[in-house]
């Protein structure tokens, strides 16, 4: 790992995701199937497959590389989660456009930009028991850390904590909200997906 976020770091992450996310797909489909349309795992596998195709040709400009990553998810059609991930990546792409290296300490800022864009697009709020809550926890957990391994470790802990905090709370967004009390003890599939993604970066 380098001391700055570069195109190479993104390439490394894509390789690592490929190895570790395939196994998570069925687990995510199952949890998502209990609450929604059950396509979350498929969305992610398709998105990551597109990422693999693009990885060799990622430009050195971090912003343009992130844009490529976002586009890999816009090619996965008809999935809200894919669209939201792409939205977040595009917001980070805008903030890093024109730079070949970005300090790791900027990660919380990039997450903050991503969160705002995702919340605007999906009309979701913090507290709705969605991936936004987990991302916000990651944003806070990575604050002040300047080294990726420490950020990953803190992030996994933060997502775990958020999932635990929301057990007993109802879903307020998406199809899951129609489950009412039956959804109280279930985890949000989007949060779990984020956890699996971050875990694959260890």
């Amino acid at each position, binding site marked *: 790992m380098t001391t700055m976020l570069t195109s190479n770091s993104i390439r490394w992450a894509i390789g690592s995701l490929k190895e570790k996310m395939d196994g998570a797909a069925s687990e995510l489909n199952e949890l998502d199937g209990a609450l929604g349309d059950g396509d979350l795992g498929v969305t992610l596998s398709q998105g990551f497959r597109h990422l693999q195709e693009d990885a060799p040709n990622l430009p050195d400009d971090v912003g343009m590389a992130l*844009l490529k990553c976002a*586009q890999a998810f*816009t*090619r996965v*059609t008809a999935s809200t989660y894919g*669209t939201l991930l*792409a939205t977040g990546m*595009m917001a980070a*792409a805008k903030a890093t456009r024109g730079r070949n290296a970005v300090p790791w300490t900027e990660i919380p800022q990039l997450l903050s930009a991503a969160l705002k864009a995702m919340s605007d*697009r999906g009309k979701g709020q913090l507290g709705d028991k969605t991936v936004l809550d987990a991302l916000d926890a990651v944003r806070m957990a990575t604050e002040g850390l300047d080294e990726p391994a420490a950020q990953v470790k803190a992030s996994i802990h933060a997502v775990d904590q958020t999932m635990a905090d929301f057990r007993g709370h109802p879903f307020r967004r998406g199809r899951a909200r129609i489950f009412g009390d039956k959804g109280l003890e279930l985890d949000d599939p989007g949060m779990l997906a984020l956890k699996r993604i971050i875990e694959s970066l260890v």
Partner: protein
Amino acid sequence: MKKILNRTEDYVMEMLEGLCAAHPAYFKRSGAQGRVLVRPEAPIAGKVGIVTGGGSGHLPIFTGYLGPGLLDACAIGEVFASPGVEPMAEAIRAANSGAGVLRLYGNYGGDIMNFDMAGETVEFEDIRTTTVLVADDVASASLAEREKRRGVAGMVYCFKIAGAKAATMASLEEVTAVAQKAADNCHTVGVALTPCTVPTAGRPTFTIGETEMEIGMGIHGEPGVRRGPLRPADEITEEMLKLLLADVPLNSGDRVSVLVNSLGATPLEELYICYRYVARVLSALGVNIVAPLIGRYATSMEMTGMSLTFCKLDAELEALLLAPCDCPFLRV
């Protein structure tokens, strides 16, 4: 399901192939998945590009209205489904000559999400874009919540008027402003008598009694304002006129264009029966009808029913409405 088709999964692609084969002077296939139609001469140097997009099943909306004095490119989705971000970005690129691109389409959540993403994508290529959403269906939300209204047949007026403005080599800001004015001045109400069937679904989108009608139903079968027994043409038209006039009061001397549109199966004869009543009522109010349109402009596959649209005109909108345009489905 009783339809003339081959494989349901080929429905949209084969339709696009046919459109291009029939009208090569107006439509050229483009995009990685072939889901974009473009005017062959686009992008036109110095002209603001206008793109639209949406699901199939509504011809001539959306993709039918490409041509001089109209639109430049269109992204096409499956029947009643939004096109993806990629075809939308491809349509914007194809329409862009450097003067910027207006995204002009109906107010539907999926289309908005994808067109916004497409706009963000092309921002990285320094393409300037603006958006105007058409939200003309008076039955879908109150005037106070106009931003929640669905876009229906009023889109035809918006395409025509914005296209005419862009043809004058006006700026992106000017084209956007006049498109917004046209959108604000369009008010539509529909009535449905029978449902339609999305090919991949294989069964009707809703059920309605043999002798029933639903006033205010949307072009995808979204619920309307009232369901009841089918009434004579004049009574149906009267009810629709009341809804429209409550939304856009017309006074003596006002000028308005009127579109009586078939939702698919309703024949021209019945549209003219209704138009006759509209013309009588507006004439009694002292309202002048300009360039009425009667026919199949914005459909919902084989749905039986019609919609009635008012586009209230000022001098600028009227001049643009009457300016020349050319496409296989609309010529001035």
